[in-house]
């Protein structure tokens, strides 16, 4: 009989660190910042125990740069931060996207702008995640709502990073980062863990890091004889800079297309009573916890309410949203910012009434507040 799974009451940030280890993370570089600090603290203890490496860099820029370096050396690599740290990491994140280096970035969102409200929850980095670095940059971001889900979504983030050779964000907020819930640690092999694809070129000199024969070419680790070039400049399939306008265009489109063409694989959503929903709530992260209460309450009152809870916020789940909103008179978007995700919902559903519900006072959105908006449409 298989051994009992370990069950543990743990904090969201701890679940994140445990998820990373489950996914095979062996390298962490970062800089402490509330409310994400515990992730680095836990990994500074645990990584050496498994022969992995933790380094506290001199700032978040260094943390992101070293994370990319660790990944190029072949290790699954992670960094964790919050708002101001995200701002500092942005140039390096663009590099990882451009050079197609897999890595995972945890952002435990706190109130902004600037130093904002370090100990308060927020969901105000949704657009900074998508558009924070310059250029047209491919972005994958996952958004867990519950502590056990932080574990599984962190594993999924590593899988997506390795599979699509791109930086992947895990966005959650101070509420679930610091909340404690019971997490059942899956046995090894129980959750899918995707490792980096290996090149099968026979002659190492023939290896092309951006081989155009593949949508996502395998990335060989440094130090194994392939001796290729990595740059943040527009490059050819051999990795060297190019001034050829056709190749520049193709390269810029390719990194976006690999995400766009695989959206269905990347998307993950939970749907609650959406089939006949006339009032649809679109909520993620901690706001979705309140939304799920509110929707249940509304159903009890006889209102045809439903919830679409995206676990992938980037690429934006427009098709699942269109499907879930097919009967909706209104879509309500509660979020801890002054109107970010709601813009995407409006873009996705022209002609449908969309109402945002926003809070930026460092307090969560309550089920009662959401119910109040739902009630307006009964």
């Amino acid at each position: 009989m298989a051994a009992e799974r370990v069950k543990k009451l743990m904090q969201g940030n701890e679940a994140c660190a445990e998820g990373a280890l489950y996914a095979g993370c062996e390298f962490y570089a970062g800089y402490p910042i509330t409310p994400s600090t515990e992730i680095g603290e836990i990994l500074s203890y645990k990584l050496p125990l498994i022969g992995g490496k933790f380094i506290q860099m001199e700032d978040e820029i260094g943390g992101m740069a070293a994370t990319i370096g660790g990944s190029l050396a072949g290790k699954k690599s992670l960094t964790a931060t919050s708002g101001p740290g995200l701002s500092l990491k942005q140039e390096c994140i663009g590099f990882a996207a451009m050079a197609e280096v897999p890595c995972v970035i945890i952002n435990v969102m706190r109130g902004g702008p600037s130093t904002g409200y370090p100990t308060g929850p927020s969901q105000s980095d949704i657009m900074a995640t998508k558009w924070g670095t310059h250029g047209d940059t491919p972005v994958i971001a996952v958004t867990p709502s519950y502590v056990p889900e932080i574990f599984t979504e962190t594993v999924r983030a590593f899988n997506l990073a390795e599979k699509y050779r791109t930086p992947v964000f895990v966005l959650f907020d101070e509420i679930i980062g610091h909340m404690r819930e019971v997490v059942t640690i899956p046995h090894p092999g129980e959750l899918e863990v995707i490792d980096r694809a290996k090149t099968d070129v026979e002659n190492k000199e023939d290896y092309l890091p951006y081989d155009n024969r593949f949508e996502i070419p395998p990335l060989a680790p440094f130090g194994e004889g392939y001796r290729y070039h990595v740059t943040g400049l527009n490059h050819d399939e051999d990795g060297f800079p190019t001034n050829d306008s056709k190749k520049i265009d193709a390269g810029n489109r390719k990194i976006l297309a690999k995400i766009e063409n695989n959206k269905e694989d990347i998307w993950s959503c939970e749907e609650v009573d959406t089939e006949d929903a006339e009032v649809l709530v679109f909520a993620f992260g901690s706001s979705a916890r309140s939304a799920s209460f509110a929707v249940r309450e509304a159903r009890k009152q006889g209102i045809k309410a439903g919830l679409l809870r995206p676990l992938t916020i980037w690429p934006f789940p427009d098709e699942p949203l269109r499907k879930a909103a097919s009967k909706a008179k209104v879509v309500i978007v509660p979020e801890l910012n002054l109107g970010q995700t709601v813009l995407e919902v409006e873009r996705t559903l022209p002609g449908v009434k969309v109402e945002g519900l926003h809070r930026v006072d460092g307090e969560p959105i309550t089920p009662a507040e959401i119910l109040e908006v739902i009630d307006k449409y009964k």
Partner: protein
Amino acid sequence: MAEGAAVKKKQKVNVPFDYDKYLRKGKLPHIWCPGCGHGIVLKSLLRAIDKVGLDKSSICMASGIGCSSRTPGYVDFNTLHSLHGRAIAFATGVKLAKPEMNILVTIGDGDALAIGGNHFIHACRRNIDMTVIIYSNAIYGMTGGQVSPTTPEGAMSTTSPHGNMEPAFDACAVAEASGASFVARSTAYHMQELEKVLTAAIEHKGMSVVEVLDSCPVYYGRQNKYKSASHMMEEIEKKGTVSGAQAKNLSEEEIGDRFVRGILKQDKDGVEYCDAYDNLIAKVQVKK
């Protein structure tokens, strides 16, 4: 002439160094201007690598952004052309994740000491095993001749058009004070000395920093009225420096504002960062 004598004479001739072994010839010609010192630094570096006998596949050469930072594109190693100022931080990740790799960082003075100054200081402090080669030309070459932290006071640049009002950084003093266990300075003019210094730096275990004074005739030279690239080398790299041996017999006043060349610090007893990490792993795994 007897046949035997001819053979003897032939043997005396130095076999030309085979740079091709290390170059990605298909990526040449390089972008550097005629008279630029960067190519000389590369030549000395390749000779040093050869002398130490490093395996090409074991080398990761990382750089930032700048004319000097284009070096990795031309050499047949694992090469990482990263972001302006960030080369040392990227390289720290590679080294820590794969300590068996030999790390060379080739960057400009702007990259190392301005935008990347913080990474530079902390990598020195950690004494992580890598060789940082600063192509120190006292100017921002790639962006067209702006002032750098190593531009001498009073010098002209496109952003100090009235003369530089800021004091300059001494890269070697910063490295020493920050804890690098090997610090040296040479110039592109002193090619043979440079090769020796780079060889010692690569052989050294721990953080080694080599500041190489070299020249940007196009932007620094023109704005500061040097007649030619060779004139610049004479004035800045030859007359502007003294060897370590010479310096020993000179007072501080006599040295004046000339830079001292040679190995300035070599501490073989310091603990290297990756070794320290391995010790830590061994310790905590036993405890477990």
